[in-house]
């Protein structure tokens, strides 16, 4: 066994430097040349390198971030992630009062005119995410993971189920018994009241947008929309459902991120407070 280990180490140091760069250029799905042990060693090195790079989650924490700023940041990060320049990343923040629509542009579910929305100090944005209309505002935890689903072999359904389970887990920390929606009603519910919403975009296997978990937002804003296009169902918040006192919002944000890291099998986490440059012309 030890002689084999020595041989492997010796061979790998000889071939790895040259062959490593060659392997990185290979398009995925193509076959490797059958040059015996040398090829296998290089392949193993590359896989280990890929794996160590990809299974750390980098978390950035922000305060209140304008919706468009956050969108531009996500676009930049998902481009970088697709190019393999950065590792899996997750953003934690809140938004000022904002109504958003998904790719289907279901603005018949917005029960106000744009000027009425502006008069109440809110914004409206159309996005490329899935899902219907929703509201984001202060005291609602926003989590935007920018991760590679291809790297973990997940499809949209499994990813979204993971996001649901994170919110359910965090709700349970406060004694709240939440559950996923029925088929076709993605999201997290307490009884027939919605506590958490999901809207995701997957582009070239990289996720953006994510989840919105109601800690204690002003629920009146939801009166002006048909939330997620589902009539006759209410919205709720952790504050309304929990019997116990809630900690600072930041604690709940952190719990969501930790639950995410666990659910998606990340080995390590790196935390950063802000630290990313938002598009300068939009910072208010």
């Amino acid at each position: 066994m030890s002689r084999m280990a020595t041989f492997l180490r010796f061979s790998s140091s000889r071939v790895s430097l040259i062959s490593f760069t060659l392997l990185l250029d290979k398009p995925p799905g193509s076959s490797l040349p059958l040059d015996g042990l040398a090829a296998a060693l290089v392949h193993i090195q590359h896989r280990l390198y890929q794996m160590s790079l990809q299974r750390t989650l980098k978390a950035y924490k922000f305060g209140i971030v304008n919706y468009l700023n956050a969108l531009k940041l996500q676009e930049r990060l998902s481009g970088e992630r697709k190019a393999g320049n950065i590792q899996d990343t997750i953003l934690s923040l809140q938004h000022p009062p904002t109504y958003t629509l998904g790719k289907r542009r279901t603005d018949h579910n917005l029960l106000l005119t744009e000027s009425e929305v502006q008069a109440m100090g809110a914004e409206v944005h159309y996005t490329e995410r899935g899902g219907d209309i929703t509201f984001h505002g202060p005291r609602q935890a926003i989590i935007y993971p920018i991760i590679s689903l291809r790297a973990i072999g997940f499809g949209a359904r499994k990813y979204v189920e993971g996001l649901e389970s994170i919110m359910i887990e965090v709700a349970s920390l406060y004694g709240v018994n939440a559950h996923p929606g029925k088929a076709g009603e993605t999201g997290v519910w307490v009884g027939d009241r919605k506590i958490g919403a999901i809207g995701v975009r997957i582009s070239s296997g990289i996720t953006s947008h994510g989840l919105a978990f109601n800690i204690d937002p002003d629920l009146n804003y939801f009166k002006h929309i048909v939330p997620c296009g589902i009539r006759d169902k209410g919205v709720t918040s952790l504050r309304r459902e929990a019997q116990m006192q809630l900690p600072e919002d930041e604690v709940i944000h952190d719990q969501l991120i930790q639950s995410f890291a666990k659910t998606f099998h990340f080995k390590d986490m790196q935390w950063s407070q802000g630290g990313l440059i938002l598009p300068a012309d939009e910072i208010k």
Partner: protein
Amino acid sequence: MALKLWASSAANALKLSSRAAAPFPASSISRCFSSVIDGFRYSDSHEWVKHQGDVATIGITDHAQGHLGEVVFVELPESGTSVTKGSGFGAVESVKATSDVNSPVSGEVIEVNSKLTGTPGLINTSTYEDGWMIKVKPSDPSELQSLMDSKEYSKFCEEEDAH
């Protein structure tokens, strides 16, 4: 653990059977049997191409639709648009997630499947027939050679699901 990982990767590289190294969790058993059609070509982003004469019909695979869940919305380009191999031409929505769909070949869109506007679920129920998305006149038919055949694609799916 590391040695088992090395063994599995080495086996892959040397094209030996590596089934013993990666036991399938129960939840992925249905994905083992995702269907493929012989004669079609496949991309690593799970799109299929049927090439007949100078028409390439494109859709997403059974593996893809299974991982997506029920498709509720499909966004397609207009006829006459050009598409590029590896770039997005449209999107599908399922479970509140929009997923970009990439073209496996370059060329010009000559027809889009308008039935998908009213019945997007055709992608789930008739993945390789009525669920087709676009028809393209390929600008470079040799691009098809670099796509996977049904055997290679099946293996690719197995490896992806074994994560």
